[in-house]
């Protein structure tokens, strides 16, 4: 087995373990996006989920670059990821410049962000599509078959993580879990903002401090974020913990 395949297997094993331990879904999705960017030859990866109104929201990205975020968010109502979500099948755009006529607004934002290629694979649950996994490349060019298969496999894992109970037959229950995932993302971003301001950190630093505290105290990232945002847990306590950890 090649080193890359070892890496992929390790990634799936850790994902399965996290699922079994009832890990926080938002953290899982962020980890998945980061794994995906590392394993595939792409510059940024994002997961977009649809809310009950059918609007796409960014729930996880592999990087904190503002430009990447902008490009992902531009796909709310237009772009390869949105098309992939609507049609429920992969959309491959190896050269975005030649596809500008199809998605003019998205192509403009993407070009500004240095994105040259986009591949989107759907997150499917039975007959429904709940979102899409988006791969951004810095250079034009197609992804090979093996990479695309792997991307789809990772998207399937993300869907399972999201829906936890695969047998959930009730559509309203699925909607509720999607809504929970979106809400978790909101409080996580707010908590990052609180820690960033109070500790003078950038957003990745704020996320690292938050995740460290959650892991060491065995609490879910979402629960911790909610406590920080509602000022039930002082931000200073989280910063202090991060400082002690760095020294040890």
């Amino acid at each position: 087995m090649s080193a890359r395949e070892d890496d992929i297997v390790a990634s799936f094993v850790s994902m399965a373990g996290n699922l079994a331990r009832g890990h926080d879904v938002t953290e899982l999705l962020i980890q998945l996006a980061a794994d995906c960017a590392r394993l595939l030859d792409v510059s940024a990866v994002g997961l977009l989920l649809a809310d009950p109104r059918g609007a796409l929201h960014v729930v996880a990205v592999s990087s904190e670059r503002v430009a990447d975020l902008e490009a992902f968010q531009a796909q709310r109502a237009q772009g390869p990821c949105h098309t992939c979500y609507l049609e429920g099948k992969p959309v491959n755009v190896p050269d975005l410049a030649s596809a500008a006529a199809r998605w003019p607004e998205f192509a403009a934002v993407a070009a500004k962000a240095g994105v040259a290629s986009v591949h989107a694979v759907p997150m499917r649950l039975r007959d429904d599509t709940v979102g899409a996994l988006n791969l951004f490349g810095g250079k034009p060019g197609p992804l090979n078959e093996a990479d695309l298969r792997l991307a789809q496999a990772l998207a399937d894992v993300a869907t399972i993580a999201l829906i936890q109970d695969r047998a959930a037959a009730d559509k309203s229950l699925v909607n509720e879990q999607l809504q929970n995932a979106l809400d978790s993302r909101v409080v996580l971003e707010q908590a990052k903002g609180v820690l960033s301001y109070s500790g003078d950190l950038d957003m990745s630093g704020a996320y690292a401090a938050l995740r460290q505290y959650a892991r060491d105290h065995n609490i879910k990232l979402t629960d911790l974020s909610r406590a920080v945002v509602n000022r039930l847990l002082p931000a200073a306590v989280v910063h202090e913990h991060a400082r002690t950890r760095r020294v040890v």
Partner: protein
Amino acid sequence: MDRQRLRDAFGDAVSGAPTPLEAADRLCVACVELLDVDGASISFIDGSTTRGTFGSSGELSRTLDELQFTYGEGPCLDAVAKRKPVLVPDLDDPGERRWPALAQAMLGHGIHAVFSLPVTIASTPIGALDLFRHSSGPLDGEAVTAGLWAAGLAALPLLDLMTADTDWRKAADGRGSWEQLASLERVEVYQATGMIIAALQVTPANALVRLRAHAISRGLTASQVAYQILDRGLVLEDDGWINLPDDQEGAS
């Protein structure tokens, strides 16, 4: 009716109104016209201090909404507490024992089904959209989806109500309601909201209100103000915000 027309109809109801209260009423009337329900109301629940009916499609709906506050129980209070829809297809079902006093009162007014959808601001539930029907039976999937759209839009007039000094016409002007909502639902807005929470020691809902008020008063989108905050180009102070002039950047 197809989804796009439904969305447009809800959007129009909110966009054209002269005041937040009028917008809320029109949204409720639109629910009655477009969904399979006989009445609708929007309640405002800010923590445990302010509670009350914010908008309604008519007198009966207002009464039904107020009943829930009178009795201190009901699907709208549960929808807010649990942050999820509370659907009651048959109030007269013997298995339905959640709100004994309220159920009897509602049945007395000829209401047999109630559907309560939470209205959230910055992930904080701040109220609920209640849909009432004379006949029992579930709300179909399409109607639930449409109801959730309406509940999403209901957040806009509630936000404006919380910002007393906001010029409502200006707020409703220009961009359509869905675009306004979309602008509030972006990652940078949530991160900036967190910074306001830390700087001003306020609740998440209050932080979003301040961000939006600043945006409206300067003719900017919520997203643009959020980037100013994230770039530290906007200094947050207790009694107001100060914009750093560009030429001061890097000077100190």
